[in-house]
């Protein structure tokens, strides 16, 4: 007996957005009602959008479940997925570090980490390239555009 293979990523996407739609629709019920005769209220448009999203996602989910032939979807190997996951994690860590060690240092570390992840191993290239990159950002944003970037709580003391 052959078992049908589902595309779990597609199912996840539909279910994720379906839950967002349902959640948003329920949450609009907490909005205060102003009951003005010349306005439909602040909950109407979000409610319409969230219900529409839920219905569309339900249709997508059903079409995915009852699909006869699976499309040639992009499938990634474990190694590829791991690489992307690590890159995302590095981004998240950088965002948290900016407050503490400042933008320039955290971006410097982040950029080196990404280059290591992508296969650059030469220490001179790693350091010099990123000094150049951070220097360019400093000149463009801090000097030219007058956009102050955070220097970090540690250095502010």
């Amino acid at each position: 007996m052959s078992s049908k293979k589902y595309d779990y990523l597609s199912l996840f996407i539909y279910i994720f957005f379906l839950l967002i739609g349902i959640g948003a629709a329920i949450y609009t019920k907490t909005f205060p009602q102003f009951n003005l005769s010349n306005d439909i209220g602040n909950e109407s448009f979000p409610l319409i959008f969230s219900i529409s999203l839920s219905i569309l996602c339900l249709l997508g989910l059903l079409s995915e479940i009852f699909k006869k032939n699976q499309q040639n979807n992009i499938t990634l190997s474990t190694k590829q997925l791991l690489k992307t996951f690590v890159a995302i994690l590095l981004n998240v860590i950088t965002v948290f570090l900016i407050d503490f060690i400042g933008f320039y240092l955290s971006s410097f570390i982040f950029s080196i980490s990404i280059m290591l992840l992508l296969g650059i191993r030469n220490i001179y290239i790693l350091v010099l390239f990123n000094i150049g990159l951070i220097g360019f950002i400093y000149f463009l944003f801090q000097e030219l555009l007058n956009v102050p970037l955070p220097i970090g709580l540690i250095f502010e003391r």
Partner: protein
Amino acid sequence: MENIELLLQGFLNLFTNPMALIFGVFSIFLGVILGVLPGLTATMGVAILLPFTFGMDSIIALLMLSGVFFGGIYGGSITAILLNIPGTPAAAATAADGYALTQKGKAGLALGFATISSVVGGIISVIILTFMSPILANFALKFSAPENFALAIFGLSIIVGISGKSILKGLIAGVLGLLVATIGLDPMTGYPRFTFGNNELMTVPFIPVMIGLFAGAEVFKSISESNQVQRNHIQIPKVVPKIKEIRQHTPLMTKSGLIGAFIGSIPGAGADIAAFVSYNEAKRFSKFKEYFGLGRIEGVISAEAGSNGCTGGAMLPMLSLGIPGDAVTAVMLGALTLQGLQPGPLLFKEHSELLFTLFAGMFICYIALLIIGLSSLRYLVKLLSMPKAYLTPIILTLCLVGTFAINNSIFDIGVMLVAGVIGYLIRLRDFPVSPIVLAMIMGPMAESNFRRALALYNGSVEFLYTRPITFTLLMIAILTLILPLVNRLYQHIKKLNN
């Protein structure tokens, strides 16, 4: 006739004031760089430059701001075409076909036509600004809340056209964008919706979401690919298209430029709306509509001519009525005030020489854009062809700093990251991201104007069918939505019968 004389006098004034020309050309260059970098927009460039113009000669000041505006709108298309990362929201419409052309080895063609279309669209808008200001300004005044609502609905109907293979996935993306756009303060009551007590969510973080969906998602996708240390070979044998090809597409450039100028003249509608509407109109009348999004040069031409056509159009209500056409011209209103000029009907009477010198300068700025654009493309392509192991950290770092620079907010970086992850995952399963961006632009416009119209008509919806412009736009929107669906159904039935 009088306008032509004034314009010629304007050119003469400029040639006797070479500093104005030098600053104008420099600002084009600056605008292009700002447009290329994700997170930095034409609006931001004009806003940052504004305080520096205080104390400058009026012509130099206004020309510099205009130059950054023009260059910024054009610059966003370069990375949109080469990397599928629009530098500005308006370039999101260019990315679809532009990047597809790069993947087919036609980056040169796409970039060349993007440059030429931007210049043609821009020049058309300046011509309209110069000669038709009073007429178009009067027509733009007819646009009230009902008409703006209908225009937004018309813009939203484009979602079906940019959905790609699956209309359902496109609609899901579009409605998701509409829902996300409701985050923040309610436009009528000021109630904070979906903010969960977080002050950072009081306004919709549109630019971080856009950067995340395009740049973040594209970078995450490229990280998962192999061959990161090898050079990308983007071949551009030539960037200047043949005269025959330019002549062939001139009617489309002209039409898109006119659409852009018209949309720009409507207060509140900017280059992003103009780009998508021009794109959709080009697709509607094309014999190859099913190939749009897969690498049709007409997609690039229409989007670029439309977005740059908006520049002069947006200045039209600003100069003649004192009402800004879009966010950039809202900032430029401040520049006029700083220079001691009162925008409005009297500006043309009392400062006609200055205005026409400005218009002459704008023509020259666009010619400069053509030269700068075409001559620098090869070097830009060489730069962007570097191995991904070098390009990826540059893009990610610029995304981080560009996103932060918008509101000096680390929260925005978090939003960009979340949008990047979502964009990456949904693109793996062919969900288009352009509808999300389009919906985030049009959704608030549709809601606020609908509710404003409702208030104007005391709760009655008769404005939907009693106002001719509103009714016409809504009918076109309905047809735009329904016809592709009917067409797909017809093709499906035909396939089943065969």
